[in-house]
């Protein structure tokens, strides 16, 4: 551990000597050219990509960009799903001392326009026809955009537009340029400094338009040293024998760290999932040893297991049921022991392994996982405990774009459930006495927001402390527990401070609830907007022979409303009376990024939600029943008579 801290301080004391990601990859390619560093599934099989291939492509991209007139400090945008070309483009751009900007594949055209304009990107690397169409639609609004390079020619080949360029032609230009100027990258590498901005990562923008956080080469170097070599991300630290699956959006800092940085530093073999829909199947094929997921994915895995078990034969259900009880005991014991195995857990787990645990982990693709992480959003302890029970210990990690994901982590044997762990070694973390806000100070604190010095000043104070915007508290003096985002804290009319995300997360542990938004700022009591999970509720309805047509139809069924009501009541029992939800309304549609209700990372945009579904909120506080929903006594749906709940009064 002390060695890690030394490394960290070295990197911070000499930012000029920071090793960039390109130099790390070049080193791998020099030392170990024929080793496989990535695999991509194409034409039904996983195609090997060696370090030599990786570096060759990186240099071709860099030269290609140079041929297109990209200079140091220019911005290059990448709009693609995860695939090797994403990394070639990113690393190639940085090798040229230019700046990468990633877009989410789900970004709709207006957001694409905003991001391209705000960053002033000169070149856009777009994956396919879908992304090219978005770019062409808004191209007129982006004066800086000069070239659009497309990866997949299908459908785009026939387009006639002066800015379009195919990937193959782009690479050919790079090859030509490399023959002309073979020493370009060496020159750029020698000019490079730790202060060079390497990437702009746009924050998800739950409030206001996204802001581009600038991360420098030095920031990333410190983050890599801390997260990868120091075991901040995966512990024990990742090594060349590790296998990972890349499937979360690479433009997010967490996945960039989990894919590109871990690969460049530790030499793990990256496997690119075919798409977000095939993650489960790819997971089973790849059987990664390291697995990082956002809570939404963990919840989906958890719900998926239970749905599939419901459809299993009685014997299988009985065996599974028995071992799940044991798993619960294992989980409880592990939680009580801060993630350390005891004799009891080892014996129970050993007995259950041949019966259920081995097969179960194999089916979901977690059999070989030796270290798992969860981050980027709060996760419900119940979900964590379930995975603890089947032998997958998940370490909750906390960090944000603005500090390059370096803040706190739970470490093996020192896990406190419900906390985000202890500060990473070699960094400063404190909690503001007045506001309770978490502050961090270390060499990976970002440079600033792109073109927004006023916002930068709000985020980093004069002493160099980064204001995270999260309210936290110390647990036992070592671990940090996140209470909520400062902006989200609800102050009721009674003057009581309430953290909505805690209640929302507990609501979302129910497999039937996909979205939950607690409302009550300046109101006499709390209410909630709830969106159901179509898969599980649909399955539930089928089992009860409840016919339905659409999502909306299903969500308005009195039986479904009663189901939601029960979830609300169960949740209420775990909170104090003032924190109880009195009423709820059903969100009549599935929330979507394209419609502006969710951010690209599937976080709810509260402001736009209030705007769109304000009538539901008004309905609740006006004591009306015009929209489907209910309170703790009855549920109602328009057109149908109010249905009284079976039991229980005003809980």
């Amino acid at each position, binding site marked *: 551990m002390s060695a890690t801290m030394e490394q960290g301080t070295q990197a911070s004391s000499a930012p000029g000597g920071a090793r960039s990601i390109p130099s790390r990859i070049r080193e791998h390619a020099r030392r170990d050219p024929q080793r496989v560093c990535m*695999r991509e599934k194409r034409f039904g099989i*996983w195609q090997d990509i060696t370090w030599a291939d990786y570096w060759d492509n990186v240099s071709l991209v860099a030269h290609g960009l140079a041929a297109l007139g990209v200079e140091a400090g220019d911005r290059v945008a990448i709009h693609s799903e995860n695939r090797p070309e994403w990394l070639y483009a990113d690393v190639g751009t940085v090798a040229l001392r230019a700046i990468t900007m990633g877009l989410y594949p789900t970004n709709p055209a207006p957001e694409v326009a905003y991001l391209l304009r705000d960053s002033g990107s000169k070149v856009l690397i777009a994956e396919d026809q879908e992304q090219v169409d978005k770019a062409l639609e808004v191209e007129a609004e982006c004066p800086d955009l000069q070239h659009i390079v497309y990866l997949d020619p299908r459908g785009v080949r026939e387009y006639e537009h002066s800015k379009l360029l195919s990937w193959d032609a782009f690479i050919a230009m790079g090859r030509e340029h490399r023959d002309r100027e073979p020493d370009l990258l060496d020159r750029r590498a020698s000019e490079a400094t730790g202060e060079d901005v390497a990437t702009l990562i746009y924050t998800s923008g739950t409030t206001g338009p996204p802001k581009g956080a600038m991360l420098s080469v030095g920031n990333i170097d410190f983050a890599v040293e801390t997260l990868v070599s120091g075991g901040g991300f995966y512990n024990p630290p990742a*090594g*060349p024998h590790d296998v990972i699956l890349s499937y979360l959006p690479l433009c997010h800092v967490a996945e960039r760290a989990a894919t590109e940085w871990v690969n460049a530093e530790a030499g793990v073999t990256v496997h690119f999932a075919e798409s977000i829909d095939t993650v489960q199947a790819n997971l*089973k094929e790849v059987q990664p040893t390291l697995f990082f997921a956002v809570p939404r994915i963990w919840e989906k895995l958890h719900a998926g297991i239970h749905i599939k078990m419901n459809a299993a034969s009685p014997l299988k259900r009985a065996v599974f049921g028995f071992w799940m009880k044991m798993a619960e005991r294992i989980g409880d014991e592990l939680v009580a022991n801060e993630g350390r195995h005891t004799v009891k857990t080892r014996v129970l787990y050993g007995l259950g392994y041949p019966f259920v645990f081995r097969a179960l982990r194999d089916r979901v693709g977690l059999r070989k996982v030796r270290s798992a992480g969860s981050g980027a959003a709060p996760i419900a302890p119940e979900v964590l405990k379930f995975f603890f029970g089947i032998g997958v210990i998940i370490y909750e990690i906390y960090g944000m774009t603005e500090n390059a994901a370096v803040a706190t982590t739970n470490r093996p044997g020192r896990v406190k459930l419900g906390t985000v762990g202890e500060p990473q070694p070699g960094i400063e973390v404190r909690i503001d006495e007045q506001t309770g806000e978490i502050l961090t100070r270390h060499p990976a604190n970002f440079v600033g927001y792109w073109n927004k010095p006023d916002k930068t000043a709000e985020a980093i104070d004069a002493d160099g402390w980064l204001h995270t915007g999260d309210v936290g508290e110390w647990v036992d003096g070592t671990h940090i527990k996140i209470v909520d985002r400062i902006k989200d804290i609800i102050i009721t009319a009674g003057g009581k401070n309430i953290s909505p995300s805690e209640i929302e997360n507990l609501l979302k542990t129910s497999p039937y609830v996909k979205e939950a938004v607690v409302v009550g700022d300046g109101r006499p009591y709390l209410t909630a907007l709830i969106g159901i999970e179509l898969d599980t509720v649909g399955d539930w309805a089928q089992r009860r022979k409840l016919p339905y047509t659409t999502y909306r139809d299903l969500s308005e069924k009195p039986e479904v409303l009663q189901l939601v009501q029960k979830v609300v009541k169960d949740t209420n029992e775990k909170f104090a009376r003032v924190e109880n939800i009195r009423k709820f309304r059903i969100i009549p549609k599935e929330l979507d990024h394209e419609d502006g209700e969710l951010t690209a990372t599937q976080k709810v945009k509260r402001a736009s939600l209030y705007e769109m579904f304000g009538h539901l909120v008004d309905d609740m506080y006006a004591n009306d029943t015009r929209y489907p929903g209910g309170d703790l006594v009855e549920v109602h749906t328009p057109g149908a008579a109010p249905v009284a709940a079976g039991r229980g009064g005003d809980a």
Partner: protein
Amino acid sequence: MTGPNTLLPGRRRAVTLRGRPELYTEYGADQALLNTPAKRRFAAVLLLVLVVVPFFLDRDLNGLLTRVFITSIGAIGLNLVTGYAGQVSLGHAFFLGLGAFTAAFLGNEPTGSLRGLGLEMWAWLPLSGLVAAAVGAMVAPLAARVRGLYLAILTLGLVFVGDHIFKEMRTFTGGPGIGRRAAAPIVGGLDLYRRQTILGVEIAGDVLYYFLCLILLLVLGVAARNLARSKTGRSFAAVRDRDIAAEVMGVPLVRTKVVAFTISSFYAGICGALLAVMYGTIVPENFGLLLSVDFLAMILIGGVATISGSIVGAAFVVLMPRLVQSLTDVLPFISRGGGGGALLSVDQLQGILFGALIVGFLVLEPRGLYGLWLRVRNYWKAWPFSY
């Protein structure tokens, strides 16, 4: 943390693939016959058992196992044409007989009334297959014109035509009721059906012949399996599933059917020639309709359109009589001979069981024993889920 390279690139590459049977980096691995570690282990153990076991069994049981191997070859042949290509053939016995008598003609020295060429096994075995294949190829164009019930009748006719020919070509077959001696399996002056000393080790004739047949089964079985997953095999399946659709896709119907019949007949010829060695003396009556039905039962019980099913089915049909016989010691109402006051004779019980099994499989599990195995395997494959 990256550290210097201590392992060879090849080994490094293997590390990230080890224990990940579904992570295919080559089409070859994806299509491999033994594509999972479990299959590889099972195949190795089975092979080891099969190599060791003849040294511990008595002659009688060795003979039974050898017969399983030989009939498996014939069953695989029938499965190629009936299971894979979907062309019902009741004429399999005819091709078996053709192989057996060709071998006898080629392998025996001429005697007074019988012709013979006195060739060794390396000549008569492939030739008996080829002659059967040639006749198959000649009959196939006729068979390719009809399908379903008509094809069954046509191939049924083949058995009767064959029966007639075998009975009348007395200089080749010895005639009805008399027959002739089967060809001896002599290779390089070494009779593989008699005790021999090879490399200083004395090996019994039945063990030698056992190994010969095992090797032939392995070679022909793998060949059939490869055929089934090749372009030819896929065209077989296309013709089976819907001949019109297959033709629309560009699969030549007549040629595919001819190929199927020809290859199937080759397997039958080899099977007949090897089986004849075990019979010792062969008569035309050996190759009647009942033998065809036996083979159809093998593939139905074992599993249509599977190679391993053919082998299991052959084993089942060959071993069942022995099993029933040993039942007579346990069950008092079965007698060894006819009559004798018991309720059933062995033969009757065999007949009943045989019939009941065929009906049972057709109704309950059309994919045969292999289908049962699939069910068991899938049950555990999805554990603890059901799908």
